[in-house]
């Protein structure tokens, strides 16, 4: 429907939040307007790991069970420090 709206008349929009995403070959995507990562289980090693990919750069990190457990136990303050852009990625 490519009609030009009459600027004198009212228009209606339904404001929908974004839904869940599972992209074939990429896995489940955890995404917000600030970041986009895919997560899937990787079984190529001797224990199962989580494969996390930053979809905006293609950088991949594997997280093993102990690393994931450590993230669960991270103090909020430490997690917040990791979010400081100067902490690692834009330290230069």
């Amino acid at each position, binding site marked *: 429907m490519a009609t030009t709206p009459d*600027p*004198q*008349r*009212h*228009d*209606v*929009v*339904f*404001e*929908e*939040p*974004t839904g869940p995403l599972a992209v074939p070959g990429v896995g489940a995507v955890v995404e*917000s*307007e*600030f*970041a986009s990562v895919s997560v899937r289980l990787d079984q190529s090693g001797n224990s199962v790991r989580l494969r996390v990919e930053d979809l905006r750069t293609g950088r991949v990190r594997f997280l093993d069970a102990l690393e994931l457990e450590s993230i669960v136990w991270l103090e*909020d303050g430490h*997690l*917040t420090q990791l*979010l*400081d*852009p*100067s*902490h690692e*990625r*834009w*330290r*230069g």
Partner: protein
Amino acid sequence: MTALLPPEIEGGSRFDRLVQPARVHGSLYTDPSIFAEELRKIWHRTWVFVGHESEVPQPNDYVRKQLADQDVVMTRDKDGELHLLINRCAHRGLQVCDDKAGNSSSFRCPYHGWTYRNTGELLGYPYNKGYGGKNKLELGMGKVARVDSYHGFVFGSLAAEGPSLDEHLGAAKGEIDRLVGLSPDGQVKLDAGWLRHRTRSNWKFLAENETDGYHPQFVHGSIFGVTGSPIGALYSDNSTAVTRNLGDGHSENDLRPEFRSFAEPMRWFGTTPDRVPGYVAAMHEAYGDDAQRRMIEGAPHVMIFPNLFIAEIQVFNIQPVAVGECVQYATAVQMAGGHELNQRMVSQSIGSVGPAGMLLADDTEMYERNQRGVEMADPEWLDVRRGLGRESVDAAGFTIGAATDETGMRGFWTHYKSLMEAED
């Protein structure tokens, strides 16, 4: 456009001349300088309805909202506390959040990467040597000065000082109580999604119209006809319903006298108990002997100054854009523990305020034609005298008029005038 000031009236304040007991001047709807003054003295000062707590149910949820001309992010932090952030980066002023809704403990500005917690606090910035290291800046996102809520309805005031939300709501609180009292759990949710109606009309036409009981028989003839609704008949000279000035600019159409005389539960909703059995059972369970009264009297029809309109089954959030433009956000009320009533509330709302709905489109046609009309030169005034000679004071001390009287509008204007006459 109507002349800026009526010349024939001398003396008094500017608003004494524009706002009179039986008439208001057309320039109130068309003069950009009055609109600018309203932003300062009303929208940036008083309590304004922004959204509902149920829109951010989880820790770190956020939604973008409007507070008049301000783009606001309503967030729930990790500890569950609500914040209204002004969507502006402290570095060079970029809009930080772009999505309508999301879940994130922190927000990263896309321009240079400054990163904020969802409380507005600056958490970090890239290449921090340029600032002498980390935590060197006493900056953060702006915040709406005061945030408070009543039964989950979230209000913001951009003024650090002023009446409390409790004082602002005054008698209108009782109407919100009535609404949540129709939920078996005593809670409503506004999580069904908002329809955004852009409307080429001054915001005050909407605020006045919401409790105008004179127009429904004309403007809403089609929806009453199609649905066979008995509500239309309640807005006539024979009706026992009343229009009540609740003070502080708030007003209601109180249809309870009519519903009480019929004494039929769920008549207010246009249904019967056997069609919503789960809901009716839950109401009896929750409220015992009082359930019947609640289901007979139904939900409120109340306009809460300046921008929250609770119309029985739906809620409207009105936000001004310019002197001749505003936005109406509309959503269906959802009762916590409401069983099958909630689905019906959604379908009724789609029928009334949805894109092909028959209620709001008709009202909006009137708002927009009203705006075009008052841009004409003559007559300069809008008449608000209807029922002035037959008002009375009810047992609680509120001024009431008949169902079709302009008692609500007069209450609106009295409060409007008091705010506009205040110091800048």
